């Protein structure tokens, strides 16, 4: 965003908590209740493409820098929206509690989030309410657990080979 340009929050007329991240990137902290509303307002304001949607598991980094009004939760869904017209980006961060890992889907506003939400479900176990096809995408259907969670340890999956020689 160049100086003198209206911020995404001003363009969309949403009063969410705005912070500027590293490199002056605009970040909006939204609650789950206002998530769809804010995304809809941003879409109306010209942010017509959802570039990216991903999740983060903050299990081991709960004391991360956040504005005071935002209550830190274990999961976060991060959405990157782009405005082709204003040549501008905005990032939404939604706190998702561990006890209720459900977020409304953005599919109806941005159909392009279909794969990305499936990926976030697959790797983090977040449910996207209303998603038309909430299946795993990268891991096999019968896989147990969600690998990118911080309590899913690397290198602890027992791998057994049928042809392995010797007693087991």
């Amino acid at each position: 965003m160049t100086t003198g340009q209206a911020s995404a929050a001003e363009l969309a007329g949403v009063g969410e908590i705005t912070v500027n991240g590293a490199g002056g990137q605009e970040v909006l902290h939204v609650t789950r209740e206002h998530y769809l509303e804010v995304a809809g307002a941003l879409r109306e304001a010209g942010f017509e493409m959802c570039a990216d949607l991903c999740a983060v598991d903050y299990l081991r980094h709960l004391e991360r820098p956040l504005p005071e009004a935002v209550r830190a939760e274990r999961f976060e869904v991060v959405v990157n929206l782009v405005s082709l017209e204003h040549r501008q980006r905005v990032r939404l961060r939604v706190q998702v509690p561990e006890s209720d890992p459900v977020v409304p889907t953005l599919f109806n506003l941005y159909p392009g989030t279909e794969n990305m939400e499936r990926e976030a479900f697959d790797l983090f176990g977040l449910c996207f309410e209303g998603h038309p096809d909430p299946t795993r995408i990268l891991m096999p259907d019968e896989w147990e657990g969600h690998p990118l969670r911080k309590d899913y340890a690397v290198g602890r999956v027992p791998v057994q080979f049928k042809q392995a020689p010797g007693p087991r």
Partner: protein
Amino acid sequence: MNGEELRAETSAGLQELLERDETDPVALAIEEGSPLRLREGPVLAPGDIDVEFGEDETMIINMGPQHPSTHGVLRIMMELEGETVLRSKPIIGYLHTGMEKTGEELTYVQGATNVTRMDYLSPLHNELVFSLATEALLGIEIPPRATWIRMLMTELNRVSSHVLWTATNGMDLASTSMMIYGFRDREMILSFFEKATGLRMNHNYIRPGGVAADLPDGWEDDVMAIVETIPGRVDEYDELLTGQPIFKHRTEGVGVISPELAIAMSATGPILRASGVAWDLRRALPYLAYDEVDFDVIVGTVGDTFDRYAVRLNEIRESCKIVRQCVEKMPPGDYRAQNKKVTPPPRARIDESMEALIHHFKIFTSGFEVPAGEVYTAIESPRGELGCYLVSDGSNKPYRMHIRAPSFVNLQSLPPLLRGGLIADAVAVISSVDPVMGEVDR
């Protein structure tokens, strides 16, 4: 909620293309390539619709994951009526190796080695986006020469990636001589990469703080030889394919996507530009020094397979233009930031300075610490917007590293592109989307 309950609740069923009456109506619309339809109002259950063809007249078949035209391990399930594709669904994950999880276990110094293996046809772009994200979190400036070296190398990489695409696309459309030519010309660039970085692919050349080494002696001659040869070769491709009746029949009007749908499906890169949207991150949100070079953003008009071919072919020419300007404008100076904590000291300093030895040891064993924060950087890779979302907790390893892979997102455009076409056209369409499975599955 414990893991067991969550699993029970989220056990989601098959990823595969199911029978019509078992599919969610909206998912059916996606598979039929019309995700923007039926947004409001009541939706009919598929069972209630009196379809003209009976269930036994259509056939669900697999294409891949072992099909040569899928460029790796992409599997597409298609419902066919005769030879016409009614709906389709890409199924991925066969190459998933958990590189994002691996990235959390590697230091920032090692990270570039990991990401470079994602999109193996444009490794330098992966390294670049990771390095830019790390530098944004560190808040360090890199010297101008490093910036221009990065531009030079990534543009050459774009040329090699597009040339390889032209080659494999020719092969998919039964023009095997195109394949031979493409691989021959790509080798020119790869041998320059080998000279400059030590490796033909997976270079680990662009690193946080700059690049690994200065360009080799006589690099201007090598690069000028490339940019003087490639445009002539592109003219040859043009002659070989563009006007050829078989190629035209197989590509023109096949796999059309409208700009609205392309934007809605978050498609970027040549797919979006071929549909007529002039969106190129090098121009729209310039990074490196792209605002100082002169080049054109290539757009198509129809958004069909032919346009995607034409966009890529002309982007090779534009990239050659940028490379020429990089050679002319290459500033003198250092090729990496002189920051003791981030970049290793020159080899000669290690012999005379104890401090330099300590820094060298420290950087290559434990790496450097990055201030806590989060950042998203995006660049224009040959396939579209390549993004890196990096979260740091203040340690020497990324807390979370997410790569926004353009091929992964672009694959969503396949059902609209395939809908209504022949199964033989599917080969041309899949090729024109240019998915790199290493990046799709990560």
